[in-house]
């Protein structure tokens, strides 16, 4: 009997071991660096819970992300895409439809975000909303007695040579649109945007391309103010204890929605679904916000799990703020090329 039992146990162990190895595999995730998906504690918890091993890779512009998908077909299982670019990835057949029934937490995603036309096509889901946030201004607290309220601070002579913006054509042009009082998704007066940005150039210390750039510039006290992402400003404060505050200027700010997609040719769709489910889970989100700092979750339950007075609920949920922000819509290829040409020209003429 004992022999039978031990045999049975052995078989079960073997079967379950086999089952785990059949389930388990590597999940290759493509995301910004330092953006939730590569938090060591999160990876550890996810790997423990599911047996999938996470392999991270990073990009530092949406364009680089797309090119990595194009030139590495079949390599990635999960990719984090700004919803404004999901359509482009889909048009190039870089991503595949997602079976949301395999992602239990999907049901808790805000209906308005989940139903976004940018993430859905022909009744199929191509992106699972994760978090949303703002491209607004952030300031070095050491340089201001009271926080500025207008984007005009970027043009202030006092801060000459101590201003920073991101090296990204779309972001720069849209920031120019906000500064010149225009709709970021329907820029009527491009000359005004150009003029605004041209006069901004002499103010600029350097361009940033990663959170780390921004944080280093503040840590070494080389900048006063610059464009920054809301989640990143939060991380600079919470995780790195830097004197950084987010400012949502009266002129408004650009809002974006980040979503997870599964690349076409993924070799571990199941692992991808498990990873996405984990990333939108309230437990992960609350820990991410408290330990590290994060943008606003698209999952209603996750957001509700934060204290009511927290920044992501009190400020980002404030209807007065909501009035000021403009959500990014997809841009056409022609627009992208135009933006890039303008941006390159601005950068060349700076010399």
């Amino acid at each position, binding site marked *: 009997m004992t022999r039978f039992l031990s045999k049975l146990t052995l078989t079960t162990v073997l079967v379950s071991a086999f089952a785990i190895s059949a389930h388990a595999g590597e999940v290759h995730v493509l995301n910004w660096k330092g953006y939730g998906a590569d938090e060591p504690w999160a990876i550890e918890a996810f790997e423990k819970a599911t047996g999938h091993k996470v392999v991270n890779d990073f990009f530092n512009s949406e364009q680089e992300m797309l*090119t990595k998908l194009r030139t590495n077909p079949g390599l990635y299982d999960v990719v984090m895409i700004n919803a404004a670019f999901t359509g482009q990835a889909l048009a190039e057949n870089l991503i595949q439809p997602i079976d949301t029934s395999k992602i239990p937490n999907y049901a808790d995603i805000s209906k308005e975000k989940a139903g976004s036309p940018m993430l859905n096509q022909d009744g199929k889901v191509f992106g699972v909303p994760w978090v949303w946030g703002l491209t607004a201004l952030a300031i070095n607290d050491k340089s201001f007695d009271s926080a500025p309220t207008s984007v005009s601070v970027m043009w202030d002579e006092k801060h000459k040579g101590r201003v920073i913006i991101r090296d990204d054509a779309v972001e720069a042009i849209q920031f120019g649109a906000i500064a010149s009082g225009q709709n970021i998704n329907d820029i009527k007066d491009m000359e005004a945007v150009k003029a605004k940005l041209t006069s901004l150039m002499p103010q600029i210390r350097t361009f940033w391309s990663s959170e780390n750039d921004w944080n280093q510039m503040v840590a070494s006290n080389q900048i006063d103010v610059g464009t920054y992402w809301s989640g990143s400003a939060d991380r600079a404060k919470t995780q790195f204890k830097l004197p950084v505050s987010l400012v949502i200027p009266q002129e408004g700010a650009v809002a974006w929605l980040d979503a997870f997609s599964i690349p076409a040719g993924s070799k571990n769709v199941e692992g991808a679904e498990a990873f996405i489910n984990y990333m939108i889970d309230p437990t992960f989100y609350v820990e991410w916000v408290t330990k590290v700092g994060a943008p606003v979750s698209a999952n209603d339950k996750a957001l509700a799990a934060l204290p009511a007075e927290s920044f992501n609920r009190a400020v980002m949920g404030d209807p007065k703020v909501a009035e000021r922000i403009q959500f990014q819509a997809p841009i056409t290829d022609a627009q992208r090329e135009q933006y890039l040409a303008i941006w390159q020209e601005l950068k060349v003429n700076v010399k």
Partner: protein
Amino acid sequence: MATGGASRRGIGPALPLLAPAYLWLTVAIFLPLSAMAFFSFMTELPMSGKDWSFTLENYAAFFSGALYPTLLWASLRLGLEVTFWCLLIGFPAAYVLAKVLKGRVREAIFLLVILPFWSNGLVRIFSWAMVLREGGILDTALNAVLPFKVNIDLMYSYPAVIIGLVHSYVPYVVLTCYLTLQAIDDSLIEAARSLGASRLQTLRRLILPLAMPGLIAGGVLIFVPVVGSFMEPRILGGRTGTFYGTVIEDQFVAVFNWPLGAALSFILLAVVLVILAVAAPVLRRAQ
């Protein structure tokens, strides 16, 4: 290269020794360059699955505005300036190394000069960021020594790019010039001096001409990679860090316009080759 012992005949006996090296170069250098020439005339990449055809548009793009020519000129200027500073800084050091220092000291210093090659170029460039910025190491050190307040803030500027590149490439000049200077017989210099030539005359009439091959080799070894540099300007140049190389990098890594990238690369190649070809006879005469 010396002409060997045997007399002129067919390539036959040399083939087994030559073939592996040249086959390798064909696969890894010559075929890729031909492929790139081919691609630069295409509208799309054939492997992207889109329809493609032949076009001159990628080359037309270069001439369509001031953007690319301006950037190319900026990169060529950068190459010339960095080469100039490297030669100016490196040659005297090579001379001291070859003619003043002796024995173990010379050996040790020679090793120290070339040792950075075996470290990491990227990290060396990145370390400059910490040295050059305001409140950085140079600023702090100078203000500690000098009685008056100076503000050293070179980071994210054109001079920062120059300093970083000169730092990376000056050992090449020391190396090539050292080798040629060492070959100059000391008694030749002594003879010139005892015949009444001044130090400057000896330098101009004797040493410089004899060291010319080393100067030229060093110059080429520096000019060529600097013209195509993109990593150093990106890290040290800040808002002034846009060069021809960074735009080509963007075409391949981000924008995914490989045909345009190939055309831009080929224009750069043509310009570099023309410069080298024009310079060659002049430099040969200088020898």
